[in-house]
């Protein structure tokens, strides 16, 4: 039984479909990345699951009673409340037992690295601190499902690294569904990928499944000069793509095997500088899927 099952989820605004019949399931203690270009329906999908938006059609079935934890892309806090006051309020509204509120809030703030800023007003927080507090309020009641909308996109590389590490440590007890357009993050913490485009779910599967589907393995030949690469290209031995002094040979059924390429290169002074085997990166897959009709 899945922790969350979304079936035919649809949201329309005045006849315009923001999310169009999206279906997927989340297993317990997994991390799922919702990726897609801007305006593809990621935030709308997360908002419906968080209960902030009512779906136009479809259903969201949860196999748990506790509330979800939700972190919007740009979390806004009451500037006159301290981090501790805000986190305690979040815990109390989420139903945390009164006696445990203080202890659980302190522990959570400590966990996200705000242990020394508990009494600081949130209005004085930097972007990184706000994101940490956003994460703290989302997890203070120990939800089974954590929904994160672009959790690290507004952060600098160091802040991103820290938040990603926190999220990875949460993954052991929590199911995480997060949207991102930073594909390195998706690659780092993902059991399942969901590609959204124009509101539709156009691709889904585990990272390895998706990579395999779009792998397009190829041999990459790096020549010393562009002229040498052009000379090799002019021989038209196999289908190839040249980009200045680099040539890519797709490993298709009609394409060459690595040893054939090596044999050709070994028998002549080709000006070869390097050779390796490559697969499509997640970014290339993203671009390909984003262009898919």
């Amino acid at each position, binding site marked *: 039984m899945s922790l969350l099952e979304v079936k035919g989820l649809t949201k329309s605004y005045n006849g315009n479909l923001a999310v169009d019949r999206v279906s997927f399931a989340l297993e317990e203690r997994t991390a799922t990345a919702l990726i897609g270009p801007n305006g593809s329906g990621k935030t709308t999908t997360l908002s419906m699951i968080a209960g902030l938006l009512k779906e136009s059609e479809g259903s969201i079935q949860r196999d748990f009673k506790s509330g979800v934890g939700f972190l*919007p892309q740009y979390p806004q806090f*009451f500037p006159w409340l301290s981090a501790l006051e805000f986190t305690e*309020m979040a815990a109390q509204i989420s139903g945390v037992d009164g006696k445990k509120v203080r202890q659980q809030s302190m522990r959570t703030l400590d966990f996200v690295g705000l242990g020394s800023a508990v009494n600081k007003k949130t209005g004085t927080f930097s972007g990184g601190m706000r994101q940490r507090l956003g994460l703290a309020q989302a997890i203070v009641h120990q939800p089974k499902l954590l929904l994160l909308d672009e959790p690290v996109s507004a952060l600098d590389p160091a802040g991103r690294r820290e938040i990603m590490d926190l999220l990875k440590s949460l993954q052991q007890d929590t199911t995480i569904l997060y949207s991102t357009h930073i594909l390195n993050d998706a690659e780092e913490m993902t059991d399942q990928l969901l590609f959204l485009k124009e509101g539709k779910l156009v691709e889904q599967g585990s990272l390895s499944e998706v990579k395999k589907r779009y792998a397009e393995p190829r041999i990459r030949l790096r020549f010393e000069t562009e002229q040498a690469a052009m000379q090799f290209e002019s021989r038209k031995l196999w289908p190839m793509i040249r980009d200045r002094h680099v040539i890519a040979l797709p490993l298709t059924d009609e394409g060459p095997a690595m040893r054939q390429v090596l044999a050709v290169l070994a028998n002549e002074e080709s000006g070869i500088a390097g050779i390796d085997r490559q697969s499509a990166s997640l970014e290339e897959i993203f671009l390909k899927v984003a262009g898919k009709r």
Partner: protein
Amino acid sequence: MNQFGVLLKKEWRENLRNYKLFWIPAVFILLGITEPVSNYFLPQILDSVGNLPEGTIMEFPVPEPEQVMVAIMGQYQLLGLLVLVLAYMGTIAGERKSGTATLLYARPLSFKAYFMSKWMMASIIALLSVWLGFLAGYYYTYLLFGSIDLMDLIRFGFTYSFWILLVVTVVLVASALMPNAGLAAAVSLGVIVISQLVDGLLGAYWPVSPLKLTAYAAAWFENGPDLADFWWTAGTTVLLIALLLVLGIYISSRKAASTKI
């Protein structure tokens, strides 16, 4: 602590830390004091800044202390109501527009507790402001014009309090209904002004109306209002407030999706 208690504490902190708890009563106290003082010193004020032709003699009847208290209420009906509308127009609309409501709405929030906590805090501050203003005004009226029967003063303040509670409720419902604070203020002021205008023109046909509360409050200083009309009006006002509260809770819940995410 239940959700109402948690949210009331949040409202208390907000009103304390953004100084509404201090400046709103201060404005009402100032208005309350200004009326008797300016009435008392009006001849001297006109003498010094009036630019009147030399030899002008103006006779000002000395107002009765009760008339001064009614005049204070008149100030509250103009400036006091404006202050309350401006102070509370963004209570809900502002939270939704800025996105601060999002982190509350994403929880199992009771909208009854949410709306009622805001109403309770705004009502406490509004009533506190009105009563402190009346007391300050009464003190100066007593010093400058003479005493007023204390029971009449209490009845006067009590009757006006019904009206103030109704105004606060209208402002909060407008704030729940409208997408931003400015529109909430416009709707609140529109409702208050238009209903007063209609009652002023046609009110002779109905003695029972919340809009008569100010007239009934003033009547305590004379022979007192018709008691049956007064109690029916007070009851109608309470019922109207209760209905508006139900409406406000319903609207806050229905409009939650419009919060900035």
